[in-house]
C-alpha cells in the first residue's frame, strides 16, 4: 500500500487534495502580503472561523442523511435569544453563573426542539427536508422578529465575553469549542450506532428501513442533534457579537452548504467525513482573511468562495476523467 493509499484509507480521499489546496492558499497569501503569516492574523482567523464551523457541523449531518437544514441560522438565533432572555431575566450584566447555565440549557433545548420538530415532519410525514427546513426557517425568523421587534438584545455579564473573546493556553476559546464539537462529530459519525444509521439512511433510506434500522427515529435524532449544535453556535455568536439579533450570520447559511460540498460531502447523502470539511473551513477562512489583508472587501471573498467551489468541482471532474482514462489504459 502506497503512502497515498494509506492516507486515503485513514482520512478519506478528499483530505490530501484539500490539504494541498490549503498549503497553496497559505503560500499564495504569505507571498502576497507579509501580514498573512503573523500570529495576529492567525489568531483572528481562529476567532472568526468557529461560528461558521459550528454551523457547518449543523449542516453536515442532515446533508449526510440526504437532506438539508436551511433553518440553522435562525435556530442559532432563537437559541441565542433564549440564552439572552434568561440572562436579562436574572439582571443582565449582573447575572450569575447559575443563570448562564440555565440559559445555556434553555438554548440547547430550544435548538433541539426546533430540530426535532423538523425531523418528525421529515420522518413521519415524508415531506422533503428542504421544504420542511425552509418553512421552519421562515417560522423561526418570524418568531425571532416578533419577540425582538427586529432589534437586538445586549447587556451580558462579563464572563460570557470569555466564550467569544477569551483564550485558553493561547488557543481562542471559540476554537476550542469548535475542535471539541468536531471531534465529537467525528466519533458520533464513525463510532456510534447512530452515526452508522446516518450513513445508511443517506445512502438508501428504503434499504436501511428494510434492514431493520429505525429510520424515523434516526431522522428525528439527526435534526435534533443539528439543532443542538446550532444552539451552541448561537451561544458563541451571542458571546462574540456581545448581542443577539435575529439575522446575525444570515449570510453564512449558504456558505455552510458550500463548505460541506467543498469538504467532499456527497450532495445526495451517505458519503463524507468531518476532517475534510474542517480543512475546507480553514481554506474558506484563509481566503477571506487573506483577501481582507490585501485590501479587498468582504463581498469579494463571498465571490471568491463561490468561484472556488466551482473550481473545485471542475478539478474533481478533471480528476475523475483522468483516473477513468488511466484505468482504461491499463
Amino acid at each position, binding site marked *: 500500500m502506497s503512502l497515498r493509499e494509506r492516507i486515503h484509507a485513514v482520512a478519506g480521499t478528499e483530505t490530501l487534495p484539500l490539504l494541498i489546496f490549503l498549503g497553496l492558499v497559505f503560500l499564495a497569501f504569505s507571498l502576497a502580503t507579509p501580514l498573512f503569516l503573523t500570529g495576529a492574523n492567525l489568531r483572528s482567523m481562529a476567532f472568526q472561523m468557529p461560528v461558521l464551523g459550528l454551523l457547518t457541523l449543523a449542516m453536515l449531518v442532515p446533508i449526510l442523511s440526504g437532506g438539508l437544514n436551511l433553518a440553522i441560522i435562525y435556530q442559532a438565533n432563537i437559541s441565542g435569544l433564549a440564552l439572552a432572555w434568561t440572562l436579562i431575566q436574572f439582571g443582565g450584566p449582573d447575572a450569575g453563573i447559575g443563570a448562564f447555565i440555565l440559559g445555556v440549557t434553555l438554548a440547547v433545548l430550544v435548538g433541539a426542539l426546533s430540530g426535532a420538530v423538523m425531523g418528525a415532519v421529515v420522518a413521519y410525514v*415524508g415531506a*422533503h427536508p428542504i421544504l420542511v427546513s*425552509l418553512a421552519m426557517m421562515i417560522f423561526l425568523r418570524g418568531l425571532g422578529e416578533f419577540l425582538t*421587534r427586529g432589534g437586538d438584545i445586549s447587556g451580558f455579564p462579563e464572563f460570557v465575553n470569555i466564550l467569544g473573546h477569551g483564550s485558553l493556553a493561547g488557543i481562542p476559546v471559540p476554537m476550542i469549542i469548535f475542535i471539541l464539537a468536531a471531534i465529537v462529530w467525528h466519533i458520533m459519525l464513525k463510532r456510534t450506532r447512530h452515526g452508522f444509521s446516518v450513513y445508511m439512511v443517506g445512502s438508501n433510506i428504503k434499504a436501511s428501513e428494510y434492514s431493520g434500522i429505525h429510520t424515523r427515529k434516526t431522522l428525528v435524532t439527526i435534526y435534533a442533534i443539528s439543532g443542538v449544535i446550532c444552539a451552541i453556535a448561537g451561544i458563541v455568536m451571542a458571546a462574540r457579537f456581545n448581542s443577539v439579533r435575529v439575522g446575525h450570520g444570515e449570510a453564512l447559511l449558504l456558505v455552510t*452548504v458550500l463548505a460541506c460540498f467543498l469538504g467532499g460531502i456527497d*450532495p445526495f447523502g451517505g458519503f463524507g467525513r468531518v476532517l475534510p470539511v474542517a480543512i475546507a473551513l480553514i481554506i474558506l477562512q484563509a481566503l477571506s482573511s487573506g483577501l481582507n489583508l490585501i485590501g479587498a472587501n468582504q*463581498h*469579494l471573498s463571498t465571490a471568491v468562495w*463561490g*468561484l472556488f467551489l466551482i473550481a473545485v468541482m471542475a478539478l474533481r471532474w478533471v480528476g475523475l476523467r483522468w483516473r477513468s482514462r488511466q484505468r482504461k489504459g491499463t
Partner: protein
Amino acid sequence: MRDLFRTYPVEARLSVVLFLMILGLSLATDTFLTLGNITSLLNNNAVNLIWAVGLLVVLIAGGIDISFAVAASVVQYVAAQIFMGIGGGSWAIGFLVAAALGIGLGLVNALLIHGFRVISIVITIATFNAFFGLLMFFTKGRNIYNLPDWWTDRIFIFERQAPDGSWSELNLSVAVMLACVLATWALIRLTTLGRQLYAFGDNPEGARRSGVNIWQMQIVAFGWCGMMAGIGGLMQVNIAQEVVPNALYGRELDVLAAVVLGGARLGGGRGTVVGCILGVMFVAITQNGLNLLGISPFAFQMIIGAAILVAISSSNLSFQLWNRSRDTEARLKENAT
C-alpha cells in the same frame, strides 16, 4: 371532481384552503374583497409570480435554482449600465436586454451543471455567492436612482375610481406577469420540449435512454428560469424606481417555498403552473389577511412559516388516510421519492 383530487392533490387541496381563506377574510373584514385590495395584491405579487414560474420549470426538470434572485439583481445593474451607455432605450430594448442577460446568467448555471455533472443545488449556491459577491464588489453597494424615464414611469393597464374616490389600478408588471405565466404554461403543457422536461425531471436516465437531449433540457430549464429572473428584475425596478444591489437578496427562498407549496416536487417531474399561482397566492393572501385583521407585522413571517409547515404536513398526511385502501401502492411509490 374525485379525479381532480387524485390527479392534482396538492393543487386541489390548496384551492380549497384558499377558497376558505378568501371566504373567511371577506366575512371577517370589509376591506379584503374590494377592488383596491385585490389589485394591490396583484401588483405586489406580480414579480414573485414571474420568478415562481421560472423556478417551476427548473424544479420540473429535477433541478433547483438558488441564484435567480441574485441574478435578477445583476441583470438590473448591468441593464442600467447598458441603457445609460446607449442613451436611454425603450421598453422593447429593455425586455430584450433583461431577457438576454437573464438567459446568459441561467446558461452559466446550465453549463456548469451539465459540464461538470454536478447537481444543481451545489452549482447554484456557488453561483449565488459568485454573482452576489461580484455585484456588491463592483457596485460597492451603491444604489442607482438615475434611471431612464421609460423604466420608472408608472404605466397602468387598468384604472378605476371607486365611488368613494379611491383609485384601484393594475400596473404594467401584472400584464407582464400574465404573459410570463401563459408562456410558461404553453412551454410545459403544449410543447414536446415541455413533455420532455417532465420526463427528464422524473427519471433523467430513463429520459436520456429514450432519446431526450440532456444538455438541451438543462439549457431550456435554466435559460427559462434566468429569463424570468431578468424580466422580473426589470419589472421590480419599474415598481421600486431604483436599483439596489442587495434588495433582492433572500427573496429566492421565499419564492422557492411558495412554488414547492404549490405542488412542485423537489426532485422533479411534478408541478403545474396553476399550483405555482396558488402557492404564491397562499403566501400573499395570508400576509394580506393578517395585515387587514390588524395583526402585528412582526408576526407575519412567523404565521406564514407555521402555515407552510402545517400545509406540508397535512398535504402529505390526511390524503394517505383517505385513499389508503385504494392506492396504497401509489402512496408507497410517492413516499419513496
